[in-house]
């Protein structure tokens, strides 16, 4: 059996949903909620002759980081592309509801002590809605969005994106609605996946077989320069965990200062970006990096995470880490 300590140095990109959920938390504290033994699987897939998974592709649980109770939602890309269906969606919502219930109790018991209050981590690996159960999947997205809003002012909700499939489709919106996002350079966030863009707009517009292009456009480094990935971590479970630890040690107001939606000023900021894109009409992400003051943009993809964080200039000025 590989020890908790050994697992810390493993690749976050390669880790399974359950490994991410378990090893992001303090050693020995992870407790899975509605795990495979509960046998809750999709009622829709058997009707279509598809195999089910006993966790429906989402691992949910709770454990601790320091004194904080931390809830985790972790998506498994190996099961139907990490897609969100009815049962998986309900499990996600259940995590928010449990966290909120615990928040009320903890806030009453430890008034003024934020270090005792719960937090939620979402480790995304998904293409969004599970098309086999489209309506239920869409509803799950809306419900999770609502829960994030209910958590405002109470529970920090952190997005972690660094797994194989990235975070696409409706879940791209969901990650954007959380309080902040941690990515590795291997993480990708977007709405429409590369293959779909190519199919709709043609190979000249976007060549989905060009992985370097995909990473320049949706990968962690680009997202960090643009400010939508607030933190960039190296590709180990430890690096993500250490970043989460540092963030959760901050006051709630500071953690949520990174939000990209939720106020008229933030809406203005987003609209400003749209206008800028229309003005400079970049042909490639590297042109945007240059716009924000970076030199030698063609070498940026090759930099290690540390070198990148030391040298790169971001939209918001300097590095957020």
């Amino acid at each position, binding site marked *: 059996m590989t020890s908790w300590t050994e697992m810390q140095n493993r*690749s976050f990109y390669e880790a399974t949903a359950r490994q991410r959920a378990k090893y992001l938390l303090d050693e020995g504290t992870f407790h899975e909620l509605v795990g495979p033994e509960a046998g809750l699987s999709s009622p829709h897939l058997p009707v279509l002759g598809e195999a089910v998974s006993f966790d429906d592709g989402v691992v949910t649980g709770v454990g601790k980081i320091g004194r904080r109770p931390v809830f985790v939602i972790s998506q498994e890309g190996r099961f139907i592309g990490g897609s969100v269906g009815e049962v998986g969606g309900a499990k996600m919502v259940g995590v928010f509801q449990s966290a909120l219930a615990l928040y009320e109790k903890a806030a009453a018991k430890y008034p003024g002590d934020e270090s005792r209050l719960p937090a939620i981590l979402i480790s995304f690996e998904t293409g969004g809605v599970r098309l086999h159960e489209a309506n239920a999947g869409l509803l799950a997205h809306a419900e999770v969005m609502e829960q994030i809003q209910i958590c405002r002012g109470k529970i920090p909700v952190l997005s972690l994106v660094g797994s*194989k499939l990235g975070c696409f489709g409706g879940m791209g919106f969901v990650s954007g609605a959380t309080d902040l996002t941690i990515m590795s350079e291997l993480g990708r966030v977007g709405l429409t996946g590369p293959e779909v863009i190519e199919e709709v707009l043609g190979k000249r517009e976007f060549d989905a*077989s060009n*992985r*370097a292009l995909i990473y320049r456009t949706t990968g962690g480094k680009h997202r960090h320069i643009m400010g939508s990935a607030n933190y960039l971590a190296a590709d180990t479970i430890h690096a993500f965990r250490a970043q989460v630890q540092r963030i959760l040690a901050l006051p709630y107001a500071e953690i949520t200062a990174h939000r990209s939606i939720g106020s008229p000023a933030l809406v203005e900021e987003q609209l400003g970006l749209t206008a800028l894109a229309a003005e400079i009409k970049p042909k490639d992400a590297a042109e945007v990096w240059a716009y924000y003051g970076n030199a030698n943009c063609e070498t940026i993809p090759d930099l290690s995470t540390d070198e990148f964080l030391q040298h790169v200039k971001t939209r918001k000025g300097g590095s957020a880490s």
Partner: protein
Amino acid sequence: MSEHNSLKRDRTARIQAAIPLVKMGKVVEAANTVALLETVIRPGDKVNIEGNNQKQADFLAKELCKVNPEIVHDLHIVQSAIALDSHLDIFEKGIASKVDFSFAGPQANRLARMVKEGKIQLGSIHTYLELYARYFVDLTPRVAMVAAVQADVNGNLYTGFNTEDSPAILEATRFKQGIVIAQVNEIVDRLPRIDIPADWVDFVIEAPDPFYVEPLFTRDPAQITDAHVLRGMIALKGIYAEYGIQRLNHGIGFDTATIELLLPTYGEELGLKGKICSYFVLNPHPTLIPAIEAGWVESVYCFGGEVGMEDYVKARPDIFFLGPDDSLRSNRAFGQVAGHYAIDMFIGSTLQIDKYGNSSTATAGRIAGFGGGPNMGCDPRGRRHSSEAWLRCGAEDGILHERTGGLPRGRRLVVQMLETFGEKWAPSFVEKLDAWELAKAAGLDIPPVMIYGDDLSHIVTEEGIAYLHRCSSLEQRTAAIRAVAGFTEVGMAADTAETAKLRELGIVKTPEDLGIDLNRANRNMLAAKNVRDLVTCSGGLYKPPARFRNW
């Protein structure tokens, strides 16, 4: 009195007719390509368009589609690969009618359909080496169209990193009074080195785009599964170590890529460095980088190049065969000869294997061809030199007495590695190969078999190894195959008592018999887990194509 100089007179006449199209030296403008082809190619000619599973004379192939079929028709295409749309378009358009080839890969479905519809008259499907051989006997091209990196105005060619089939095709064509046309990426004043001398070349055309090269041998370590690692560990311990395999070829695929990545880790742990895998006949596989950097490899001869490996190969002259300009020379004909005669083991994957051990990559709707597989995946009957591994495998032959009366003879190890179920849960072990269906549908004389059962010495699956050559009868051989065939139809017929007996005889070995700890068979055993690791390991010399970069 019979005429003895008709070929040369015909050649001279065709070249004379094309003189108005020549701009300078041997250079013809790209815009005049169709006119040139209509001038020098005659109906019924045997024509070669260079291409294999890597580089392609794609511009010339496309231009040949544009010739007037009333002028140029009924061509007999003799070439390694049917790989591009244009290779089959010439048949749709009535420009060509018959084909003799080796490998079809991406066009396999369309080729099968067109043969069935009677649009193509199929000659034979060859191995690369067989086809080269026939260029010098009865399939000599009248006109050859090849691809080179650079030319000078006199017609000297630099084929460089991707030399591949050019020397074999041109030697056969030009020395039998044929006509040679080369598409080049650029015309320069001075070539880095001369791979083909100008007097073998008649016309040179600077193509609008560089010739296409497929990065066919790049395997992304990120896609290697724990099951690959298990099979790799089984093969290393039960075959490489067991026989001390020093000279070998690795087929294309994730299984052998995995073994390359296990050498510096599991191989090192087993103390095998210097005892196995010193000499490869192999393309410059990016997954071989960690083993080369760890000092495992003495020599690699390449059939062709591999996109992105140019600088790395150039910086490792002790290992690779480089020209005076320090870039790789990859002469496929010599590579195939080396792979046929000078290796002690071929190990690769296949799609289907039948209960007797015959294997094939053909399925009912695809004429995929052979490439180089059969020449490496066989026991070469003409081999006379010996080596430890060859002698050992021969000494274990269960029917040596029936074959030679007991006279000692060595044997090549021919190993197939596969998961018992392949993509989309298609069983890898079958009662009858799909190749039978294909033979019937396409009117082939015999089912296209990549490796015959009697040449196959070992099968490796997640269940273990079957040492087929140790069997003393066909019945025992089928039992050994059943024993490693898992839950396929073939494997379900296995009898527990019978398998136990084969394990006692050492004809079947499970991971347990080999002392392999299943818990350690996971991706953490790999010396590189992704393409980025390979780049790092190469000191930044390996430059992967964009499609393999996730950064």
